[in-house]
């Protein structure tokens, strides 16, 4: 085979691989939609938000409690994780003595790598009994939010750290020339400069919280209800899919795919907002 012919073959092969790789996303959307379509076309979109209750085997498909639970839990967890994550990054960059800095960096990286099922196990055996002492039943919105917060702190911390590292040198020099203290530089120069990257990191962390299944499933009690307090057990969209997929058939199965599709759309919107404000997808 001549040289150019071989290169053409290679390019052809690579293109096929790239088409397959980028086609997977379309395939996922296609299959979610076709599986969701039967019940979607019968009952329409509004029924999923305004039905009386979630009795999927009897044709009542109210996803509202699950949507509210998912939303509340990811908001709560991000409210806890955002300050902790930003503070973690600031700690590494500004405050930590050198010995601590390395160790703390490792802790953040290791924490990012803890499988969610292990966090769920820890949450169920440690956090849930502690909350039970405050108010029964223990497995609750609060437990889910705490475990999720621990899980997404590294996401916020690592994106903030990357953003801090990308601040141009002359910002630091300028701050020093103005006679700003460490705190003055931090509050007046560094954090305002990376505002949009921090926001993007928070959006990515929230997408992760919304999509998380195992940890939430294990600690939040899984009762289908609108939460009235932090101590109420709730069931999120993801937990609902994981719990019912095992035995769901027909319209019920189809309704679970609708909730999966809804979840995907929500996560895409968050990722899109993050991208728009200058965030990068962290593949870790």
């Amino acid at each position, binding site marked *: 085979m001549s040289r150019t012919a071989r290169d053409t073959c290679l390019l052809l092969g690579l293109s096929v691989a790239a088409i397959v*790789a980028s086609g997977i*996303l379309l395939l996922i959307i296609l*299959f*979610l939609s076709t599986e969701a379509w039967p019940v979607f076309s019968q009952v329409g979109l509004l029924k999923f938000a305004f039905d009386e209750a979630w009795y999927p085997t009897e044709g009542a498909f109210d996803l509202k409690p699950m949507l509210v639970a998912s939303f509340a839990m990811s908001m709560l967890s991000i409210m806890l994780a955002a*300050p902790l994550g930003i503070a973690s990054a600031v700690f590494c960059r500004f405050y*930590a003595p050198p010995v601590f800095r390395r160790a703390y960096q490792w802790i953040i990286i290791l924490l990012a790598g803890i499988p969610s099922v292990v966090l769920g196990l820890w949450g169920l055996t440690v956090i849930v009994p502690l909350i039970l002492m405050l108010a029964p039943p223990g497995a609750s919105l609060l437990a889910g939010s705490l475990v999720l917060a621990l899980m997404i702190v590294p996401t916020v911390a690592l994106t903030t750290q990357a953003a801090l590292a990308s601040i141009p040198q002359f910002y630091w020099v300028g701050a020093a020339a103005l006679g700003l203290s*460490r705190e003055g530089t931090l509050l007046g120069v560094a954090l305002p400069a990376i505002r949009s990257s921090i926001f993007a990191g928070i959006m990515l962390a929230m997408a992760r919280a919304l999509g998380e299944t195992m940890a939430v499933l294990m600690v939040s009690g899984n009762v289908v209800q609108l939460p009235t307090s932090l101590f109420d057990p709730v069931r999120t969209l993801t937990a609902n899919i994981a719990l019912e997929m095992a035995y769901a058939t027909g319209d019920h199965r189809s309704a679970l*795919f609708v909730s999966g599709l809804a979840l995907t759309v929500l996560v895409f919107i968050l990722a899109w907002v993050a991208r728009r404000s200058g965030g990068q997808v962290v593949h870790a």
Partner: protein
Amino acid sequence: MPEPANLIDREIHPVRDRVLLGAVWAAAMLVAGAFVWLLADLLWHGAGRLDWSFLSTAPRNSGRAGGIWPIVVSTVLIVAVAIVVAAPLGLATAVLLSEFTRRGGATERAIGLSLDVLAGVPSIVFGLFGNAFFSVWLGLGFSILSGGLTLACMVLPILIRTAETGLRMVPDDWRLGAAALGLSRTTALHQILIPVATPVLLAGLMLGIGRAMAETAALVFTSGYVDRMPSSLFDSGRAISVHIYDLTMNVAGGDRSAYASALVLIALLVLVNGAAIWLSDRTLQRKIATR
């Protein structure tokens, strides 16, 4: 920072600075404390159950007694299927992205966008897709093959992105040199670019393996729950993360085995990620040495 200048600002905001210092330290210690608590708890409850027979025997009494050997085998098989499928596909796509498309061009942007979106799909949604496509539509049922293929889709973005970075790290001089020697692009790729980028490619592979091994939600409806030793790839096999979930939630008194399994899983992950870090450090050193 010059000390006298520093003093000016410090004299204006002494309270604010103290509060900030305290808050940042408190937050950092809280996160570190939670991590240490988690780790200590795992060791405290898991280490007693962990011994050689735990690794080498089959689970008895729904996993309360016995070990996790068939589960380790299933996990390895699922991850192996995922990597065998995703690695060539990922490498080929990465080569196309780094060597044959213009940076920021339409092709590169389109493929990049689809990969970034794919990376953000929640794992439970991969589970739904895997169940609908591999298990039902392709008729693979609950099997190691379904689970592995689902994970292959999931780890593809991370494999492609790391491989692409690795290939882009190779200096352009080397490509020009190869072209000047009259090598075809295929030969240049095969003889120069891929060998040079190998440590990064392997590091990406390790990250992919780590991601696949930690996954639970995508596997529950694809590779299933069966905790017997699989006899082929078409058998259902229980991954170690699914085992931890099942022991915690569905087996009363399974906590100790769950903790021991969690320790095994984390040890495997630390090993795999350690290898990834070591490999990418090595490339960096080699790069400095060649300069």
